[in-house]
């Protein structure tokens, strides 16, 4: 079979400007910098103008992708995996022509549709019907194509009753379903998908995965980025593993997923803030650790025993409605549960200025054996994210042979609680 995507020595460079405080450069900054440059040249007329970037104005180069080469054959379903910041999203952005590469080239054969987000271009004021047309056009469908598939799209989305309601009145579930329904009816030869499945309820996710598998089976080429190894396993035949902007391996999916997960085996039970990095305003984390109930640092816990998560924060002011949330994610990337400091109050709390320590008791006999990572966030729900620790803490649940030994297959499932049974 012939290659439909050929990537050769692809690279993407970003320039980071450390001095810049605000996100957007203003004219003033630019003028000041230009003037400084001219001033320098006047003072040192003999020096050549090729000042290294770093020296110039606190700039630094960052290669999000470097020397990436691979080929995708027609009908391949390729999963792209790697840690955050490995360059997966940058690759997809280049492949879908949103941003230009700095070096190298990509050759593509066939019609490409890329889905980096569902519902791009949805306008809240427009009705469901109008948004189907608009979103279809944005994804590259023609008017007649949309008209032909309209009923099918509506059917798939399960929102026919609200077709003439502005989508701003939709529930978030309905919104996502409608958005995905449009996307799922694209008929490209090459489909590029970023983690769009992370939204929507589980049942609908399943339906979408099913629809996408259909797409793959119809001899279409699929490129799929996800942290969810279960989804990758279900959907992809091949995998490309990325690390620090480079492809470090590609081939059979099962093999590489196992490798990737094994590489993630190292666990860390302690995190402290690096003081050289400036602290975000509002609430920030200063330290976090996982320990036994006796207070010993531990990154490997027994299936049956409880353990503690300790989080230390510092608030620069009183924050109303703040929440500390902890999400436990298993090695397949599936969130197992999320808990917050408001769990027991049922309402949001005010976080006073100063330092706080939070202690969460994680019960034993809940998680199945395996590796888990934690995402810890300080937020005002739906309003603001103060600070997030992502994958900085992780731990292993080990089975020391208690009750699972009773059953040969272990206890299949995402969790393995011991429940109370009654019988007569």
């Amino acid at each position, binding site marked *: 079979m*012939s290659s439909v995507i*050929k990537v050769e020595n692809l690279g993407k460079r*970003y320039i980071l400007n450390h001095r810049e405080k605000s996100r*957007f*450069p*203003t*004219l*003033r900054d*630019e003028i000041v910098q230009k003037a400084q440059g001219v001033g320098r040249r006047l003072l040192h007329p003999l020096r050549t103008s090729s000042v290294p970037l770093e020296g110039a104005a606190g700039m630094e180069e960052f290669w999000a992708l470097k020397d990436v080469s691979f080929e995708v054959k027609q009908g391949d379903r390729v999963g792209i995996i790697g840690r955050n910041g490995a360059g997966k999203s940058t690759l997809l*952005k*280049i*492949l*879908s*022509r*949103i*941003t*230009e*590469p*700095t*070096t*190298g*080239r*990509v*050759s*593509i*054969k*066939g019609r*490409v549709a*890329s889905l*980096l*987000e569902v519902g*791009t*271009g949805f*306008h809240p*004021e*427009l009705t469901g019907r*109008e948004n189907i*047309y*608009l979103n279809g*056009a*944005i*994804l590259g469908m*023609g*008017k007649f194509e949309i008209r032909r598939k309209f009923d099918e799209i509506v059917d798939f989305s399960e929102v026919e009753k609200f077709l003439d309601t*502005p989508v701003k009145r939709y529930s978030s579930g309905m919104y996502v379903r409608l958005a995905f329904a449009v996307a799922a009816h694209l008929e490209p030869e090459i489909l590029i998908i970023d983690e769009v499945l992370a939204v929507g309820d589980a049942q609908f996710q399943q339906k979408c995965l099913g629809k996408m598998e259909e797409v793959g089976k119809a001899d279409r080429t699929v490129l799929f980025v996800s942290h969810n190894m279960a989804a990758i396993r279900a959907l992809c035949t091949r995998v490309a593993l990325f690390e620090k902007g480079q492809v470090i391996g590609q081939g059979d999916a099962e093999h590489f997923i196992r490798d990737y997960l094994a590489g993630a085996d190292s666990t860390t039970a302690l995190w402290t803030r690096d003081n050289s990095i400036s602290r975000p305003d509002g609430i920030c984390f200063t330290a976090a650790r996982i320990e036994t109930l006796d207070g010993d640092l531990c990154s490997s816990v027994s299936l049956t025993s409880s353990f503690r998560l300790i989080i230390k924060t510092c608030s620069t002011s009183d924050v109303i409605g703040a929440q500390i949330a902890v999400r436990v994610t298993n090695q397949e990337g599936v969130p197992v549960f999320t808990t917050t400091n408001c769990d027991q109050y049922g309402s949001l709390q005010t976080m006073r200025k100063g330092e706080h320590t939070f202690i969460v008791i994680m019960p034993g006999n809940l998680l199945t054996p395996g590796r888990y990572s934690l995402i810890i966030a300080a937020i005002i729900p739906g309003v603001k994210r103060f600070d997030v620790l992502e994958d900085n803490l992780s731990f292993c649940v080990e089975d020391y042979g208690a009750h699972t030994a009773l059953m040969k297959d272990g206890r299949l499932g995402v969790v393995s609680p011991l429940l109370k049974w009654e019988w007569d």
Partner: protein
Amino acid sequence: MEPEFDLIIEPGGGIGSYWRDLWRYRELFFFMAWRDILVRYKQTVIGVAWSVIRPLMILVVFTVIFGKIARFPVEGNAPYPVMVLAALLPWQLFSNSLSESSNSLILNANMISKVYFPRLIIPASAVIVSLVDFLISFSLLVGVMLWYRFVPGWHILTLPLFLLLALITALGGGLWMSALNVKYRDFRYIIPFIVQFGLYISPVGFSSGVVPDQWRLLYSINPMVGVIDGFRWAILGGGVVFYWPGFFLSLALCLTLFLSGLAFFRRSEQQFADVI
């Protein structure tokens, strides 16, 4: 380029295929314009009437202050309100286009960072929305002309040409401002100034005939002077003295604005997704 591949992505490449892409995405262009038109007056009570009321208000103020109190001279034998409106409509087309299109890229930032399409579509569709507004408010001019029983001559047939010139000027300015606004948000604050001053600097409330002859050519550096003079000539007809040197200067500047805007937009376009 290997013949078997349809698309080659390279740094700085794709110039040739750009115009082909623009044609391929023409439907999206119509959809974007259609969306903006639909959204424009959603959840307003009087809806489309706004595009008539706004010029009407300005017309009333200008007529009372400049026409009745200050007694500005009129061009030819046209009534003052007709003369003002013939200039106000193209001016509003220009100023609305400029402010709408300069913000358009930022308002659609989400689309730009998630989907590919020729970015030119966004500011261009913002101009189309202003054109629709213009056509609606044109009914006001027709109404005022009926009221004063003013019959235009054959010159009115040239109006579409001047309309085209107004659109090109508006799009040219819009391309410059939208591309600059992506990188330097300062322009968000500059544009209201341009629009506000422009109304008084351009010959909207008065005839450009009141400008002394020796300054007339200099005055025509404002590209809207040519557009507005053209509109007046087309609508008011015979009585208007057309100042050709100034018109050609404005025309040249309009085209320069448009072409340089296009070139600048094309050059900055590739970085929009990284900067926005």
